């Protein structure tokens, strides 16, 4: 009888825990490898690859659901988003996501905003059902997608049309189109959603946009002609910008206010992807040509470890 009661209590507790709104973070870093068609799973404590998941053809964009229960991967040659359990690493399901989904961002409400490279469109999907909510025509070669923390604004960059398209949510109306330097690749909002920073690969620029007037208020040009800036992040205190410097093989640290260069951090070859830990202490970079990930300590702005992953690592997301 005692055992039965104990068992019931344990059972009830177990069920309660399962039913929690979100699960404990896995403390893993997930990296898409564009040309080996898999995802490397890095242990956040040991900083070693502990598993590899096969995820379909040409995986690039990667992201987590707001509750941390699902990992999304855009497999662009499969025209699909793959949904993986970040704990068991099993493929849960997949859904078709328009033509050539490359990059995406996950909205606080759980919906996914995808740039469809081939189609001059951005599409919005409900990942629970795989249903397309809306299609928004944008410029040619849409790539970067950034969502303001309050979810009211989405920026989609169109690389060949040289614009940032600002989409108002939930109306899904384009409210502004900001002309920037040639081949804009990525953007990031500040926490208040009042500023955005965007990189342009061919013009080698980083621009600061006032998101109330949609005017460019500051810019900096990276002197190195080979640098093709891609991902951009704000430090936790929003004082610094981290910019992936492409073929200059460095991460550039800029002052977010003056946009001046503070430091160059040498990393692997052709650095494109960046992700920052929640505590702001680490930045992970994907170095496509050298096939590795650099781990940067943001306190000292130095690389503390380099981790070999698959072929042409592209996107990175941290589950912490």
């Amino acid at each position, binding site marked *: 009888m005692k055992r039965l009661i104990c068992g019931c209590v344990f059972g009830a507790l177990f069920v309660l825990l399962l039913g929690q709104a979100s699960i404990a973070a896995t403390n893993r870093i997930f990296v898409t490898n564009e040309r080996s068609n898999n995802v490397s799973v890095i242990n956040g404590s040991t900083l070693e690859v502990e598993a590899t998941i096969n995820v379909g053809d040409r995986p690039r964009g990667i992201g987590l659901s707001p509750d941390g229960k699902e990992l999304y991967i855009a497999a662009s040659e499969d025209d699909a988003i793959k949904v993986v359990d970040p704990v068991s690493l099993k493929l849960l399901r997949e859904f078709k996501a328009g033509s050539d989904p490359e990059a995406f961002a996950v909205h606080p409400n759980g919906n996914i905003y995808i740039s469809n490279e081939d189609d001059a469109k951005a599409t919005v999907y409900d990942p629970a059902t795989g249903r397309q909510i809306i299609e928004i025509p944008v410029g040619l070669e849409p790539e970067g997608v950034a969502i303001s923390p309050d979810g009211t604004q989405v920026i989609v960059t169109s690389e*060949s049309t040289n614009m940032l398209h600002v989409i108002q949510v939930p109306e899904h109306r384009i409210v502004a189109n900001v002309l920037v330097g040639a081949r804009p690749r990525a953007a990031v909002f500040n926490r208040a959603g009042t500023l955005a920073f965007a990189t342009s690969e*061919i013009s080698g620029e980083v621009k600061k946009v006032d998101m109330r007037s949609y005017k460019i208020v500051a810019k900096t040009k990276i002197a190195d002609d080979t640098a093709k800036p891609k991902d951009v992040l704000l430090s936790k205190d929003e004082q610094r910008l981290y910019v992936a410097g492409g073929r200059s093989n460095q991460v550039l640290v800029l002052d977010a206010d003056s946009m001046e260069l503070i430091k160059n951090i040498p990393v692997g070859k052709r650095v494109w992807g960046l992700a920052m830990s929640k505590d702001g202490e680490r930045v992970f970079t994907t170095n496509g040509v050298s096939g590795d990930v650099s781990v940067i300590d943001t306190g000292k702005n130095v690389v503390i470890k380099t981790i070999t992953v698959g072929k042409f690592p592209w996107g990175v997301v941290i589950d912490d």
Partner: protein
Amino acid sequence: MKEEPVMPPATPHPSSPPGHLCRAGKTVKIAVARRILLAFSLFITAGLQYSLAAPQTYRFALVTDRQDDVMSGAEQGISEANLQGRFLDKQYTLSRYASADTGDISGRDYVAILAALPARKVLALAKAFPDHAVFNLTAKSNKLRTLCLPNLLHVIPSDKMYAGARRQWHEKHGKATILVSAWHPDFVKFAARDLNKRYKAAFNKPMDERAWAGWAAVKMTSDHLARDDDDNPAAVLTALKTGLAFDGQKGLSMYFRGNGQLRQILLVEDKSGELLGEAPVRGVAAPNDVDSLGVLSCARERQRDQRVRPPVPDGRTIPIPRR
């Protein structure tokens, strides 16, 4: 000059009862006149709003005696410019002329002229329209570059650049038979894949260097016009020569040299047309050192005549148009 509209005669206000017309006659006339004036000014404002809301149109002329890939490339450029133009209230058009009919180009407000012609005809065209940017899309003659005409912009590489690419390739890879081109339909790097895909989908044929040149000339001009409304051809020419940072989907920020040549990488293919690689050739030249591919300087006699060129902020120099 707009005609002054004729004011219709004053009529009694419909709400005024007829019995009061005589006494209130003057007041009625003023009230009616006011309403007519209001209607008139609303009409004018509406007209202005309409003309302000109509997109600004930019026209290109293409001079060619062949209906070929240069034309489809330019058309691809126009359709991409118009896609961007949707967000900016701008539109772009292309008109084709035979080389015998270039007299018809005058006075038609073209922002720039594209030419797919033999060298001597391109030269004549550039001389006939000294205030317009004339894009040389197909003539590879070195001499055309050394003439350093102020308004002649060479999108296609020069013979010397092709020879330089061949020489670099052979230095690294032995004497295999190769072809050099400014574009290749199987090129996938630097978003070339996207451009090749779009062109193929639109025209049902692979994109070659002639099509790429037509596309590039339109695209670089529309990229500039997206940021700067001024459609004065002389202003467009100056901007193209001094401020260009063009993403031609070949991976580097492209601009024109002092002699009017667009700096760019070239592509190497084997004799069956299969893509082998790029020039400048890694190991022979520094990566991205496109100036290793055959730079032509201006001919001596011309240099003597030229006035001192003003320096431009990034150190590139341009010749001053002759007056």
